[in-house]
């Protein structure tokens, strides 16, 4: 089994393991963030570039360093490989750059976004980004659309991780949505007004790292941190029926898959992902329909649960930014200071 050293810690992993998964096995602060990789979806990853790491030694056999940072989610470890993640200031700066790219056209409408509190982009920005934006242009916007009766597509928030496309490809019998156009106007779309309608389509909502795909049966019902997540199950003909229900009092506000510490769908004892069907997700909203197993374990790394922005730096940044924009032709109505473009 190959041995890999990540941020000075060495771990032995099975042949073919990616750097990201090796880091996850190790745990701790050296795990690179990942926005598009999703272990239960084949061929996912490589697009967002947030998981980049520096390989300072390729392998025992070929010790040359890799010339460019590599996507840790798509690069397999070699025996003797040495990887730098948080120990490389250059790499962290490069990652901050990627975060900035992901945010320049993001609406920052967290106060009214259902994903807030469990949004991977929030966490990413909080942990790897900067408080100040250098982008002074009008942000890209798209019309909100309903793709089917259950899912709202808010393309303006999308970071084009392709996960939902892979759900449709790999879980559903036919795919009716995909990525159309190209470059920075590429969008997730059905192209024509067509509903996404098949029994596993709801899983797209759970794989979406941001608030681009939200559950229409839950929209604006509650902030997620006001609801209580419980692991529960029921007998279901279509799926395993093992889900996470989000309660307010005794009311089930929404049903999602059970997520692991990386925000991905949990697996059963045989390693199969516990996707849930639309019947469980959208139509089983009485607490009595479910057998509650107990409170779910929720990752504490979210920006909401952390709840301690360094106020002094933040104030300084904002003051700096104000000063920079003073007397400039930045129209608040369309500029970055107005998060109202939803």
């Amino acid at each position, binding site marked *: 089994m190959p041995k890999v050293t990540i941020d000075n810690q060495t771990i032995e992993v099975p042949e073919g393991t990616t750097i990201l998964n090796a880091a996850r096995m190790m745990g701790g602060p050296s795990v690179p963030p990942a926005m598009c990789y999703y272990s239960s979806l084949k061929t996912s990853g490589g697009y967002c570039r947030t998981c980049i790491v520096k390989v300072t030694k390729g392998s025992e056999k070929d010790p040359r360093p890799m010339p460019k940072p590599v996507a840790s989610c798509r690069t397999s470890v070699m025996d003797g490989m040495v990887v730098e993640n948080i120990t490389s200031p250059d790499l962290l700066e490069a990652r901050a750059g990627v975060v900035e790219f992901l945010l320049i056209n993001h609406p920052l409408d967290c106060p009214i976004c259902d994903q807030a509190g469990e949004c991977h982009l929030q966490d990413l920005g909080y942990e790897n980004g900067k408080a100040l934006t250098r982008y002074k242009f009008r942000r890209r916007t798209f019309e909100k659309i309903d793709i089917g009766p259950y899912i709202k597509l808010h393309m303006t928030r999308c970071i084009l991780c392709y996960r939902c496309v892979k759900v449709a490809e790999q879980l559903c019998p*036919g*795919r*009716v949505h*995909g990525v*159309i*156009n*190209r470059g920075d106007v590429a969008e997730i*779309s059905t*192209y*024509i007004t067509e509903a996404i309608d098949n029994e596993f389509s709801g899983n797209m909502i759970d794989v979406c790292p941001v608030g681009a795909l939200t559950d229409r049966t839950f929209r604006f019902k509650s902030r997620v941190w006001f609801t209580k997540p419980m692991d529960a199950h029921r007998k279901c003909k279509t799926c395993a029926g093992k889900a996470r229900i989000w309660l307010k009092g005794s009311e089930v506000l929404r049903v999602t898959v059970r997520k692991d510490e990386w925000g991905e769908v949990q697996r059963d004892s045989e390693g199969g992902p516990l996707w849930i069907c639309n019947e469980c997700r959208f139509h089983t909203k009485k607490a009595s329909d479910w057998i509650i197993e107990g409170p779910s374990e929720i990752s504490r790394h979210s920006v909401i649960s952390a709840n301690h922005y360094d106020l002094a730096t933040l104030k300084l940044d904002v003051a700096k930014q104000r000063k920079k924009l003073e007397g400039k032709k930045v129209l608040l109505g369309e500029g970055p200071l107005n998060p109202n473009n939803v």
Partner: protein
Amino acid sequence: MNNNNPKPEFSPEAKTLVEKLMRRYPEGKQKSAILPVLHIAQAEFGGWLSVPVMDMVAEVLKIQSIEVYEVASFYSMFNLKPVGKCVIEVCRTGPCWLLGAEDIVAHFEKKLGIKVGETTSDGMFTLKTVECLASCGTAPMMQVGEDYVENLTLDKVDSFISDCRSKISEPVSHWNRKYIREHEKIKQ
């Protein structure tokens, strides 16, 4: 050739051509023929690809419609909205631009009374700008249909426009179906 017909169909000669092209790729990989087939479809159905036309292409290639929409919207040569009989594509990249492509575009806009991306009200001309067409040594240049028109000057633009206007009564197919005609000569 009505693009709004909900059930479009390839003409017999186009169908033969499509079948011939599909045989160029291994068994089960007929999706590979999508770009050539979309070119034929665009030539057959008025120079643009409507949803029913793309759906038909999907059916011919035995793939899902969204796969055709994804591809057609990625490549810049496919028009997803109706265009005029004569689509003028002026190169706007580097070398052409150094040698005055901007003036050529401005002149077209003035002469035709439309902006880039628009079609004249008589349905004759659509004006587009495109990226480098690998004709930098004869800049500025434009493409009309399959033809390259090179070393453009304002006078050349003027005579081009009047030349085209004189052919306005000719049917649309005349402008677009060169691809199919040329192809018929090839056996394999």
